């Protein structure tokens, strides 16, 4: 509850931050005016900054952060792997390939669909590779994800480099590291829609995920159809990851950091962990993206650089804590 209020406040405050000197009141005025509830009081330029540039970007950041955190929780629970996350297991890179094929080559497939297909392909290859390499232990899975990420990342770069006419380096960076600089209302709608359609049902699976806490046999003895559930839920995470990556590129570590941070506070019960991680993920990415666009003003950092800066050490800490697992 507190997190939800904090998130709403953060969205408003984050919109004001930047070189236009806006106040929270200006944000309210603009939003009300666009919802047809008030008279426009801002100049068209300032109103445009709020409504056309920053508002959709901040909302996209919130949706992407929430979605990635949900994906992280679900994947960690289903694979009993504390290091699972859409980025580390290669799903994000796979989704990038799908998205880039549509955007850059103009292949006539719906963008989220292509990204979903890419994420699903990456998921299948990662788990197939890990299983062939001796089982789905945290270590083999992460290594397989590394290999998959490397190849799909290279394919993304190649496609952009081969086809793009102008600033292909910048474009490549944005896809590989993730960036919200191009976010508009269409991206907010796509990310928000995916969160609503896939993310919210995933939040309702808390009880099922709890059943996996003691492994597949225990889950099965508690009445869970293990194979079907795992397949279905992993496909759902691929779908959600695909939609999110299609608007933001492969932002790393959000699905890793937030679930673990929230777990430290509320424990492992998924019925609390899932919604709280979603809120925390949204909050986190709103602020990190605000940092990414203002720290080196007027230049902009791909937001993935900042998430990796936080996520790398978290990953290392988890690795040390879980050395007996691998």
């Amino acid at each position, binding site marked *: 509850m507190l997190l939800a209020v904090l998130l709403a406040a953060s969205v408003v405050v984050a919109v004001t931050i930047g070189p236009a000197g806006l106040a929270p009141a200006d944000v309210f005025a603009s939003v009300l005016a666009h919802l047809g509830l008030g008279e426009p009081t801002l100049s068209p330029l300032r109103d445009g900054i709020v409504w056309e540039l920053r508002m959709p970007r901040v909302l996209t950041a919130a949706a992407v952060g929430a979605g990635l955190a949900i994906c992280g929780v679900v994947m960690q629970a289903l694979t009993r792997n*504390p290091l699972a996350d859409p980025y580390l297991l290669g799903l994000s890179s796979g989704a990038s390939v799908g998205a880039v094929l549509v955007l850059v080559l103009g292949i006539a497939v719906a963008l989220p669909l292509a990204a979903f297909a890419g994420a699903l392909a990456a998921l299948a290859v990662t788990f197939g590779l890990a299983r062939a390499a001796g089982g789905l232990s945290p270590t083999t899975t992460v290594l397989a994800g590394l290999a998959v990420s490397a190849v799909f990342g290279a394919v993304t770069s190649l496609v952009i480099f081969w086809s793009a006419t102008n600033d292909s380096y910048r474009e490549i960076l944005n896809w590989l590291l993730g960036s919200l600089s191009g976010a508009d209302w269409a991206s907010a709608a796509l990310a928000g829609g995916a969160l609503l359609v896939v993310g919210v049902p995933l939040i*309702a*699976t808390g*009880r*099922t995920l*709890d*059943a996996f*806490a*003691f*492994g*597949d*046999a*225990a889950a*099965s*003895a*508690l*009445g*869970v*159809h293990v194979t079907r559930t795992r397949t279905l839920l992993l496909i759902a995470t691929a779908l959600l990851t695909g939609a999110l990556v299609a608007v933001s590129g492969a932002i790393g570590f959000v699905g890793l950091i937030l679930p673990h941070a929230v*777990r430290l506070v509320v*424990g*492992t*019960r998924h*019925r609390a962990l899932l919604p709280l991680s979603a809120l925390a993920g949204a909050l986190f990415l709103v602020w990190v993206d605000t940092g990414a666009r203002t720290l080196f003003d007027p230049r902009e950092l791909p937001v993935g650089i900042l998430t990796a800066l936080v996520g790398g050490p978290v990953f290392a800490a988890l690795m040390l804590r879980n050395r007996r697992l691998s």
Partner: protein
Amino acid sequence: MSGEVRVRAGGVGATGSGGGVATDSGGFGTARSDDPTGSGALGGLRGSRVRFSRASRLIVDDVDITVPRGAVGALLGPNGAGKSTLLHLVAGVERADAGALALGDDDLAALRRRDRARRIALAEQEVHGAQGLRVDDVVALGRIPHQSAWASASAHDRAVVARSLVAAGAAEFADRPYDELSGGERQRVNLARALAQEPELLLLDEPTNHLDIHAQLTMLALLRRLADDGITVLAALHDLSLAAGYADHVVVLAAGRVVAAGAPGEVLTTELIREVWGVEASVLEHPRSGRPLIAFSEVTADAAPPAPAPVE
């Protein structure tokens, strides 16, 4: 082939009468009115010609098993005999390739998973910790088959969890993290989780592992009491004397097949122990309970392990 089953099921432990070891309240040898043929054991577990193989290796080979309702059944046999797999088949963790399993009048294969989980609970031996879960959270997992996805735990759920913690002797560490418990404490929590499922049939895989002798006897006495309350119990055990002292019915597995089944006094003989475990043993009579007590002779260190009973 089921021809090797020397003693058919239904023979409830009527060997000893009266008495009991110190921790027990004297529930031994209570004769139960079950159909002596074992074919119509009311509400109990019945399996016939159950067969299961993994990676083209036959692990459970035409097993017939019966545990009458409210009886304590012990599943005995050397390591790798298929005890855990058989328990998994009954719990629905694995699906049998052939044969039939029934609880009461219901074919287990026809039950929905969730319905099966409301009637059969499995307490496993080796449970790797779920990080960050408290003991009462772990026990609450047992309520999952009874709960809908959205509803939060009801007062009834909480009452069952509390009762299960007390029954399993785990109440005093209810608020400790599961992964900080000792092996014996975890065993009790695993049992409490299974009890929270409110099962008709309770399956346990080596429930006395990691326990000291007092805790072992307490565990078996508890299973005895649960059975007296009407729960059917089937436990895989290693300690033959313990099984003989508490079980109404023992089933001996070797290399996936039932070698013998029936009352402990009839099944656990010197010959059978030699044949199945490759160990010389004298079967004595417990001075107080009158139940079989097995005294083993030395095995020399270079003695060959028993040749598994031939499969096929």
